[in-house]
């Protein structure tokens, strides 16, 4: 289990968010409110021009800069 950020995983991979490296509390609350918080499982649908994540039944687009501050761990599914 290696720690990566969201920009370092492959398209189609499913990962679990392990940490949010955001110092700004307001931004942190926004991201959490979207459902992106430690423990959430997300699938990377697209990586260009911005990232598109699938979280349960929702699609969320985030830019690379924000994605860099989201640390994730690969699930077994992703390794297979």
């Amino acid at each position, binding site marked *: 289990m290696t720690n990566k950020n969201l920009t370092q995983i492959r398209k189609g991979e499913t990962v679990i968010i392990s940490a949010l490296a955001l110092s700004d*509390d*307001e*931004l*942190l*609350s*926004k*991201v*959490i*409110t*979207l*459902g992106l*918080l*430690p*423990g959430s499982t997300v699938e990377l*649908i*697209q990586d*260009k*021009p*911005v990232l*598109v994540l699938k*979280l*349960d*039944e*929702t*699609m*969320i*687009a*985030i*830019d690379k*800069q*924000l994605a860099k501050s989201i640390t994730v761990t690969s699930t077994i599914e992703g390794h297979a």
Partner: protein
Amino acid sequence: MLKECGNCKTSCINSTGKDIDHQTRVKAVLVGAPNVGKSALFSALTGVYATISNYPGTTVEIVSGKISVAGRIVEIIDTPGMYSLSPITEEERVAKEVLFTSNPDLVVHVVDSKNLKRSLPFTFQLIEAGFNIVLVLNMADEAERSGITISVPDLENVLSIPVLQTVATKEKGIAELANLLGKESSKTKLPLKPFSKSDLSLNSVEHLVEKHKVASTICLNIVSKTKKDGVKSRREQIEKVLLNSITALPILILVMFAFYQVVGVFGAQVLVNWLEVSLFRETVNPTVTEIVTRLVPWVTIQDLLISDYGILTLGFRYAIAIVLPIVGCFFLFFSLLEDSGYLPRMALLLDSLFKKIGLSGRSVIPIVLGFGCATMATLVTRTLETKRERLIATFLLALAIPCSAQLGVILGLLSSSPLLVLLFVLIIGSVFFSAGFLLSRLLPGKQPLFYLELPPLRVPSLKNIFKKTSLRVWWYLKEILPIFILASVIIWIGQISGLFNVIVKIIAHPVALLGLPKEAATAFFFGFFRRDFGAAGLYDLVQKGVISEVSLFVASVTLALFMPCVAQLSMTIKERGAKTAVIMAAFIFPFAFLVGWVTHMTFVLGSLL
């Protein structure tokens, strides 16, 4: 069973509550995240049509309606979308303010059944704040299609609040909800807890995470999912084609081309020609002129109604024959973009481009809307997150985004020369990008981050599209007709008093510097009232044959860069403050003339060489 109260169907903007009451017994406020069908629920409940959209930011004005249930009157207030009680955007602030100042007996939290887990933390916040809550699980049909089942009785037990399932677009579960609202008595209200930003105990990140964890645990027991992937996988395939790095750009260009065909060609040329020439010039205006001449013997009054600048012959003609068809086509196409879910996808495709001008992909929505009506778009900048983004977007809307009426007329006039059209797009485009680029360098503050929830791609419902288009056109007409008529009256007074000539003479100086005939000064003067009005004035000059192609081009560029119109100026004052608006105006008008002058001089030099 549901009955509307006739006199206050769509009342109450900025509801403070008390002043609009007649005999209201129960007041209910609808809250919820964007795109959960809140407005659809509102119209299903009240019969009042609020804009239903497939992206955040359309319910920027507060709408309320009344119904009577079992002899009791229930007032229902719809609010802009919000994700939590800690507001992020301006529109969320508006929603929160309505929630806390309207003193509701009941708050209806509307959520998308597919996203219960993510929505519950907001429910917890509302409960903690002391509101009386009803939880509505909307879009139950979509959840069912995705194989999601929610045990409503269990959820009611856990939360100790009433929970209902609805499909607002098909009016399912609406009667039950109305009954529930009718039963509510206003006595049981508890005092609200103040819920400000400084209130860390309720608002901190730790508490937010905690709420999400509780929500996850609850959903683990209450929500079950069976795999049902048939429809979804096709949607995902379309999604991939739309966003794929190879196909995305051609599709985007194709969409823009279709946009141009609908608005610039069909609206601005085919429809305008038919309405303007066949209907007004040949039929309506001669008839009206004859009737007025017969009925009103006074020449001065005749001038007010039927002269070159008359209310009937000019005001109505501009509004109905030139502006309306173009704006109508624009709103039709925009509604299609919205309801299909393509608009937020456009936002993500253009994000990196917009980052260069200090905006994020989120701003794509107000900017694109600005091509329809800059006034409406300025209002929608509320959906942007930082003051900096709102300022940049407002400025660019005021400077370099020609509205559909104006753009339609200009493109129609220049259509005989594709080269000039291209040059026009190039000049306005470079002004847009260089102004944005400079502004993003000059203004303090951080570059925005982009994140946006993408609503599912949907096949738009024709009924919804037409309703929405007509609602927007109606809003537009309500805004513009009085201004067109007022402009006619002001010009009439100006002509009688001689003031008009003085002003036109003053404007004629900078206009002459641009190499334009003095008649163009009149069009520019109109341009101060409304940009499209000015463009319509140009249309008349071409019809009369008093303006050369190059002059027309110079005038078009200058007018396109003017501040859009009186309505947009007043909206800018309202949203950004008078000081900012005045600074913007003080820059924009001289700058528009400067660019016009440079364009003119380039042509002059070009012809000398």
